[in-house]
């Protein structure tokens, strides 16, 4: 109907439900719009979002792995630290024990040494005493003999001489010289 008179068509109002060339135009328009929107909108945005999702998932996975690694490392270090502390304590204890033993040994040795020195000294003293007593006795005897001989030269009787020496020796005996 409208193909018959060209110029008259412009400005004409078509019927509300009237098939026309618009049908063909709209199919073409829809296909063109689809082509553009697919290339300009849906494809790039979808790809972009998928890429971001993958990146995020990757980052999260990486972070998780790193966290686990860090935790494992921390546990390892803590274990090592505890081990080192234990070892240190062990060393200190061993050292203390050793020092104690050494001190004890030194003390014992010192005591033994002191005892030995003391014993030696006592022995020496005893010997010296005996020697001194002996020399005193000898000297006293000499003096006595001398004194006696002098006395004898003047007024010394045999009986008096005898009794005097005996009495003298007896008195000198043991105890008196030890003091």
């Amino acid at each position, binding site marked *: 109907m409208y193909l018959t008179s060209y110029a008259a068509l412009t400005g004409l109002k078509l019927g509300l439900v009237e098939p026309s060339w618009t*049908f063909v135009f*709209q199919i073409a328009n829809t296909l063109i719009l689809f082509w553009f929107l697919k290339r300009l909108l849906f494809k790039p*945005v979808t790809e972009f979002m998928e890429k971001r999702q993958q990146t995020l998932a990757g980052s999260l996975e990486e972070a998780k792995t790193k966290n686990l690694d860090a935790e494992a490392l921390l546990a390892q270090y803590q274990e090592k630290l505890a081990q080192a502390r234990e070892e240190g304590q062990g060393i200190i204890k061993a050292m203390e024990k050793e020092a104690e033993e050494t001190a004890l040994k030194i003390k014992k040795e010192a005591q033994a040494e002191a005892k030995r020195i003391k014993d030696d000294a006592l022995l020496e003293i005893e010997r010296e005493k005996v020697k001194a007593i002996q020399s005193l006795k000898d000297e006293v005897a000499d003096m006595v003999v001398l004194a006696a001989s002098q006395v004898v030269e003047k007024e010394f009787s045999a009986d008096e001489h005898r009794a005097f020496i005996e009495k003298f020796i007896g008195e000198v005996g043991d105890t008196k010289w030890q003091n």
Partner: protein
Amino acid sequence: MEGGFGPIVVFEIFGIPVTQTVTTTWFIMAILILYAYVATRRMTTVPGGLQNITEILVDSINGLTRQSMGDKNIGFAPYMGTLIIFVAVANIAGLFGLRPPTADVNTTFALSIMTFIMIHFFGAKSQGTWNYLKGFTEPFTLLLPLNIMGELATPISLAFRLFGNIVGGLIIVNLTYSALGSLTTSLLGISVPLFQVGIPALIHVYFDLFAGVLQSFIFAMLTMVFISIAID
């Protein structure tokens, strides 16, 4: 509205009339292509502003397609998205004083015929042509004419559902404007249609925005369901 509510022929190319429907569609296409171009420049990992909206839009269309057609048919998402976006914007065009392209049977039939072709093309492709054709004789051969009529009813109901909703809204909005204009004249006695200010807003919100978005969703949803039924 003199001479009914049909689309006006804007100009002719070699005797082929180009109506308001087509020019408005071109305008919508230009806006959508420009939007798609601008929105996808310099996309950043942390989205902001326009990219945020675009991502939500694309993501929900992908989700909707995945939900109603399954993961293996996610390739239909760009077409379904185009359908939803184009039909929704076309339906809303009334808000901006344009004649909605979807208020034209030629547009709605163009879309529904494409859906019809897709249903049978992908049905035959996935099941094998012979198996697919044999499906029309089930449950028994006697039902063949009924099955064919059922299949032919699909694009017709799709096209007229969308067309009816939008053209109905268009007519009601137009009648309301006329009524408010006459009311101003008869009540106040002035030729300035004062009552047309503000009052039709509610009608616009319902018929253009609500019904428009809803119908675009229904059209795309049915297309997805029909295609996935044919594929299975």
